[in-house]
């Protein structure tokens, strides 16, 4: 199953995603072997980030297997198995990593996203992708921000087309745009 969760900053999207991943994991682990992965895309860039990461890890407890990977998500997913639950948080940080540090083109981005979604289908694990809606402010005059926003919207739409469940979180409250029946 593929799940897409988005919302504004501090909207409660990560918490909602973690709870949903946990309950999905608890549901499947009774009948199948299932591992619960957390893919963290943020880099430990400074002390503040180190502290934020520490708090997040502490909150999640030890049920989770945390994998830190700023760039190559495909490599991680290639090692996941049927019924594993994988939470990717968050797409916006991964996008800025690969766009601004590895100079990924839109074509390359769409190909990578296509591969991630295909892996989820083929290997039948549960992939949950968390992202942020950054396109509802005043239009930017910076080219790099404009391209980033455009690319993010494009990959959101590619992911949503293939998602079973699509959720927007506002003030901690989920609105189902797709697939409420699954949960």
């Amino acid at each position, binding site marked *: 199953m593929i799940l897409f969760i*988005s919302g*504004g900053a501090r909207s409660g999207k990560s918490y909602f995603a973690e709870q949903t991943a946990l309950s999905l994991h608890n549901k499947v682990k009774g009948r199948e072997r299932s591992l619960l992965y957390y893919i963290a895309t943020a880099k430990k860039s400074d002390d503040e980030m180190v502290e934020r990461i520490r708090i997040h890890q502490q909150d999640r407890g030890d049920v989770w297997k945390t994998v830190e990977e700023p760039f190559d998500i495909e490599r991680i997913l290639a090692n996941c198995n049927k019924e594993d639950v994988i939470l990717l948080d968050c797409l916006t940080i991964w996008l800025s990593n690969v766009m601004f540090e590895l100079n990924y083109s839109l074509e390359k981005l769409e190909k990578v996203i296509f591969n991630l979604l295909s892996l989820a289908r083929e290997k039948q694990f549960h992939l949950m992708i968390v992202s942020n*809606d950054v*396109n*509802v*402010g*005043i*239009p930017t005059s910076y080219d790099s921000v404009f391209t980033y*926003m*455009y690319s993010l*919207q*494009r990959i*959101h*739409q590619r992911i*949503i*087309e293939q998602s079973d469940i*699509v959720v*927007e979180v506002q003030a901690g409250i989920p609105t189902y*745009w*797709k697939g409420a029946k699954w949960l």
Partner: protein
Amino acid sequence: MQLVIGGAFSGKRKIVRERSETCSWVSAYNGNMVEDWRTQWLEGTTLVLEGWEQWIAPSLKKSENNDDIRKEFKALFQTLIEEEEKRNNKIVLIMLDIGKGIVPVEKDERRIRDIAGWIGQDAAQLAVQVDYVWNGLSRRLK
């Protein structure tokens, strides 16, 4: 008159295209002025108008009063609705949701953002159907 509103690159045009077979586009992004609708609207087609935040910008110089600008746009919506009834064709307004980010530092940007919000409310009030577009999906609000 219908209103389709949503964030940048959220798939608003795609949704309009899926609904109407043939459209006459009046787009600020292609250099059109809003008044071009009179000449661009072809017989038997749906008129689509987009780029309102860009059409608001020149009115800022004409008037210091945001409310006067808002009224001008409201009058335009009313004219459009009358013409729509006369022709018996549809009109779709596409508007960009720009009100959810941080308050802009520049005064003119704040004015554009405020007026865009107000004309969005006016358009929604006059429209028979309003849809919000989010990441390629849409939800009917009215």
